[in-house]
């Protein structure tokens, strides 16, 4: 079972899950705020189509959490706006 870091917290998640599923199984439903209104977003389409689930993965912003499988050691950070302003909530 891979150990990962979610917003600075070390957790162990199930094998073979996506980043979105890992976040949701930790009770997290939202990991991004929108660029304009700053509204919270999480999974919407669940299959890579809508880009609502964008997250910062290992320092790289705007990764689709719903279609990216977790790898051991992943560092997942929630992101704000364009994801390029830095800042973990």
């Amino acid at each position, binding site marked *: 079972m891979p150990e990962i870091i979610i917003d600075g917290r070390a957790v162990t998640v*199930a094998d*073979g899950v996506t980043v979105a599923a890992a976040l949701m199984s930790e009770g997290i439903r939202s990991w991004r705020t929108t660029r304009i209104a700053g509204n919270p*977003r999480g999974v*919407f*389409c669940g299959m890579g189509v*809508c*880009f609502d689930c964008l997250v910062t993965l290992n320092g790289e912003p705007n990764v689709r959490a719903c*279609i990216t499988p977790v790898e051991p050691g992943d560092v997942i950070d929630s992101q704000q706006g364009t994801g390029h302003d830095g800042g973990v909530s």
Partner: protein
Amino acid sequence: MSGDPLDATERDVVVVGAGAAGMSAAYAAARAGCTVTIIDANPVAGGQYHRRRIDAATYRPRGCDDEAVWRRIHIESATTVYAVEIIDHGTQRIFGVRTRGDDRHRRDVDLVRARRLIIATGAYDRPLPVPGWDLPGVMTGGGAQALIKGSGVLPGNRVVVAGTGPFLLAVAQAILEAGGSVAAVVEANDPVALRRHRSALTNVGKAGELARFITSLTRHRVPYLRRHRVTRVHGDTTVTGVTLARVDASWHATPGTDRFIEADTLTLGYGFTAQTDLPAQLGCTLQVSADEGLAVTVDDDQATSVTGVYAAGESTGVGGVDLAGIEGLLAGAAVARSLDHPSPLRDEPALRRSRDRMRAFADALATAFPLRSGWRDDLEDDTVVCRCEEVPAGRIRNAITELGAHDARTVKLLTRAGMGWCQGRVCSLAVDRLCPRSATLDGQARAATRPVAIPVPLGAVADINLQSRRES
């Protein structure tokens, strides 16, 4: 990798999509003797219906079980085709298939050469906006199913499943089977119309499946509310409940029938949208299918209007997993024949007949669950319609009434609705239906024409453009 299509590896056939259609097509073509590569965006083959965990057993379509054939097929998973170019050399036609890695590897662009192309890109959910639908906890039915099938995670603790079509029952069933709780299934249409199709249902083997879904709802005491719609989603930072209302045949809510249901999750889905990005890009003829959405037009051999390009499965119109598989086999066989290989199929005429019967049934089903307009009443001025660019309904209405926009394209230019990350995949139906001139083939086709199927880092594309120019 090289940016030059003439240097790239050449395959007889590239299949885009590893769902039931693409995997069946690849198998048929390879069995006949073609060299085949399948390219699929998901981490593992299976597509939507046969989505599975990455550590699960490998997906094999029904009847495609000769492992020696599979060993000859190259499957490129976690890879998206973002563009295809056509290069004609005299009478020879070659496709330059441009790919990009997954989001961990999005700078990994590559190129595969193919003599034939089979589009089997499937479909995605068709949601409609409702106040509060941008709250975390609202997702598409397919999204909920994908969490369960792909990761074994429930979408929430208490789910309302809403929209229209038999797929609502499949979503509810998936949640119940995974141990979740469904507060209600909310169906905007009245599927009584389905009874008229009972013999057709039995014919295509779907009656048993539907009966199982209904039995399971009854056993779990889940209300199946027909002629109802979710008219509002409640919550501050996440869903806390929804308001339902009875609706008439046009989906307008009946005053005084509002009712609040507590729930932490809402799934939405009013059918599916066929994934037509690549065929639209290639100039394949598209059509409006029975469900009012776009689909690629194909002939009896699953060939599109562009020579060398074939299509199978949901990209040619939504029709279910079994139909997708048969269309795939037929496409693979046709491609093999066009490359002078004998057909690998034992009884092609029978397969064609099944395909035509199932397609006719799918069209009948689509008419039993039509798309109506009453949902537009719910939208408040501040209800987000375009989720990416955060364009509210008020601004879209203003573009129509004050600025004179008639169609979705003009609304898009005036408001940015459909210009964000998803390139209008989520909102284009709603924006189109809010316009005075809507549901036209032309307007929908224009909205579905996207220069690239997925964003590609600028550096990578710039490099490729230079290369293409050099060839031409």
